[in-house]
């Protein structure tokens, strides 16, 4: 009995020591900061950077980074909830140019956090990407990935169009018959929106029985804000814009009408698959991948997948990139910034300064990210695996525009998505859709004090 008591006592003391020792160790371990990301190639790339940092720099900086993934479905809704509740659960916010205006009131500006110039400063990044993550003139996030649009085309078909005289005659005939315009084939690099429409009709089997593809192009016409960003290229390419001077909406202009006609004509002539009204990024890729279309305007991220022999055996090798017809591309950046409600700000700031280095961004690019950093994107070793990277840097600088970063960006996109998708689906006349969208945006901006 006595022996048992002693044993029990011993066991208890061992257990207690075990409980105390880790507690002591814990007090010396680095501060853990929590950074939100969304799942996909971006988080795969970031995980490698985080792992490297935790293995090599944690001890020196006294910072350990924990990356948590929020599901892509409802991602920004969840982040909005966390921020609206002023929760310290999240130290680093994942944001994007189009939603920064909504996040910025809940974030710390990076002005004093990063260095003024050189490594550890935002000078490392392409200016347009940096600006796209600034709100009211102050930077709020480190740009991690840049997104823009390209015209993706099948070089086998488009090259033949430039050499085959029978095709060329047929092309002009189709343009004359269907559009009433005298057009002849051009290099995709030189296309105007008119050429885009004419080529879409030429490569549509119901219009031109000799077409090698069923449809000329594939439009992403689902009621989604991301699809508005693609359409915006035609608006800006035709000389239009969201706003006139100040914040006077300009969606009822001739340019907007013409940009909408590009989509409406293609829809009416059935030069895009009938189901396009429910299409987004993935569906468009499937149409291209299965050889159903000759070209499309698509996000830069798709090239990697479409030019891959195992993932897209039917088209890989024949996928080429050109500027979006009209030579304008929407640009937005994804980035990370500091939550105003974080409890570990000194630690978060150290991590931010690390991210703003060429070293970190090269690592990120090597792991599959698309950082808006010239030294990373134009790296010749990397360009072999990702030939689109130098083009991304070039197009973002030459053709890129950012609609706006005001807090009302998402509401405006939502109004446009609702009305434009109705017009794209041929449910509402284009003029009415644009007038309604313009009216609603005007009302919104009046309520928020942008307009009198």
């Amino acid at each position, binding site marked *: 009995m006595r022996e048992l008591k002693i044993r029990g006592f011993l066991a208890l003391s061992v257990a207690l020591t075990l409980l105390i020792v880790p507690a002591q160790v814990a007090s010396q371990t680095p501060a853990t900061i*929590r950074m939100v990301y*969304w*799942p*996909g*190639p*971006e988080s795969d790339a970031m*995980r490698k950077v985080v792992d490297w940092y935790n293995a090599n720099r944690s001890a020196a900086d006294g910072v350990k980074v924990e990356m*948590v*993934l*929020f*599901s*892509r*479905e*409802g991602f920004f*809704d*969840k982040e909005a*909830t*966390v921020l*609206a*509740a002023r*929760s310290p*659960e*999240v130290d680093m916010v994942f944001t994007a140019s189009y939603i920064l205006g909504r996040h910025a009131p809940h974030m710390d500006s990076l002005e004093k956090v990063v260095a003024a110039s050189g490594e550890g400063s935002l000078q490392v990044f392409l200016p347009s990407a940096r600006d796209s993550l600034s709100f009211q003139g102050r930077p709020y996030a480190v740009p991690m990935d840049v997104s823009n649009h390209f015209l993706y085309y099948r070089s086998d078909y488009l090259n033949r169009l430039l050499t085959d005289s029978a095709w060329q005659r047929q092309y002009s005939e189709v343009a004359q018959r269907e559009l009433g315009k005298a057009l002849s084939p051009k290099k995709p690099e030189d296309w105007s929106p008119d050429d885009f429409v004419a080529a879409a009709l030429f490569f549509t089997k119901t219009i031109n029985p000799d077409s090698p593809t069923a449809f000329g192009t594939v439009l992403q016409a689902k009621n989604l804000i991301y699809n508005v960003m693609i359409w915006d290229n035609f608006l800006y390419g035709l000389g239009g814009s969201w706003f006139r001077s100040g914040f006077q909406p300009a969606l009822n202009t001739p340019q907007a009408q013409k940009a909408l006609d590009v989509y409406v004509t293609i829809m009416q002539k059935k030069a895009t698959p009938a189901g396009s009204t429910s299409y987004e*990024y*993935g569906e468009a*890729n*499937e149409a291209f*991948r*299965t050889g159903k279309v000759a070209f499309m305007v698509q*996000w830069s*991220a*798709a090239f990697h*997948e479409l030019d891959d022999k*195992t*993932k897209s*055996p039917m088209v890989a090798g024949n996928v080429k990139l050109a500027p979006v017809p009209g030579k304008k591309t929407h640009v937005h950046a994804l980035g990370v910034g500091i939550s105003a409600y974080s409890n570990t700000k000194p630690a978060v700031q150290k991590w931010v300064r690390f991210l703003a280095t060429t070293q970190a961004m090269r690592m990120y690019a090597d792991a599959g990210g698309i950082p808006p950093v010239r030294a990373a994107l134009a790296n010749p070793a990397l360009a072999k695996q990702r030939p689109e990277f130098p083009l991304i840097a070039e197009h973002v600088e030459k053709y890129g525009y950012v609609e706006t970063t005001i807090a009302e960006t998402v509401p405006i996109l939502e109004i446009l998505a609702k009305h434009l998708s109705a017009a794209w689906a041929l449910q509402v006349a284009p003029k009415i859709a644009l007038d309604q969208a313009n009216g609603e945006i005007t009302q919104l901006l009046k309520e928020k004090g942008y307009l009198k």
Partner: protein
Amino acid sequence: MTGARRKLLTTAGAWALAAACGVLFSFPVLNTVLTSLKTVADISSTPPKWVFAPTLEHYANVFYAAGYKFSQFLANSLLISLACSALLVVVCLPAAYSIVRFGIGRARLLPAAVSLRLLPPVTFAIPFFILYSASGLLDTRTGLVLVNLLGNIPLGLLIFVSFIQELPQELEESAFLDGATAAQALRHIVFPLAYPGIGAVAILTFIWTWNEFLFALMLTINKATTVTVGASLFVTAWGVLWGDVAAAISVAVVPTLLFSFFVQRYLVRGITLGAVR
């Protein structure tokens, strides 16, 4: 037509209807299972392939290659759903009994509880997040059990009320005369008689909780993540990883399938009413 032939015909008809619906209803799930076994190229091949060289790469992604703690998601979902299913019966059955037999809470409490079902959950994420942050329930399994309990109270109450009021009151009355308490009557008479209702409620609550997405998304960070939210991690900004999502769904269906298969045995009466009347 003789009685026997007629019976045979109706039985055949019944079987045909059930089998036709079974095939139609199970198609989305079976197709998902097939998708989970195809390579990326096979998934997007036309015409659809029914015979193909199966691959387990998507299952490997789900369980370890993608870097998610999928088995922990499964364990979370299992614990949360089991607890919610059991607690719902414990909370709602006595309450329904009181409402039916004593008329307490008929006028106010029942409508108030049932009206929980009317609320669209989207806007409630924020107050719940605030409530849970303040009370330490954020990102805990207990928190998810409670919120799912709330969502299923209307179902449990209404089904139990419907069942209990169809039970003959004489049995309990004679038990009371013999000196039994209401708790004993509930335990020994009502409970076994309400087996089919309990079975249905348990299955539906388990399934609902297992599938619940919005609150599971909003009220977790990374510790209490459920399998439904975990499966949605294979939806990326750059398209859906069809094979991986399909594999995650296929794995996630198994526990619900087993649960409903075994609980089905309670979908028969505990004791034959005719025998005691």
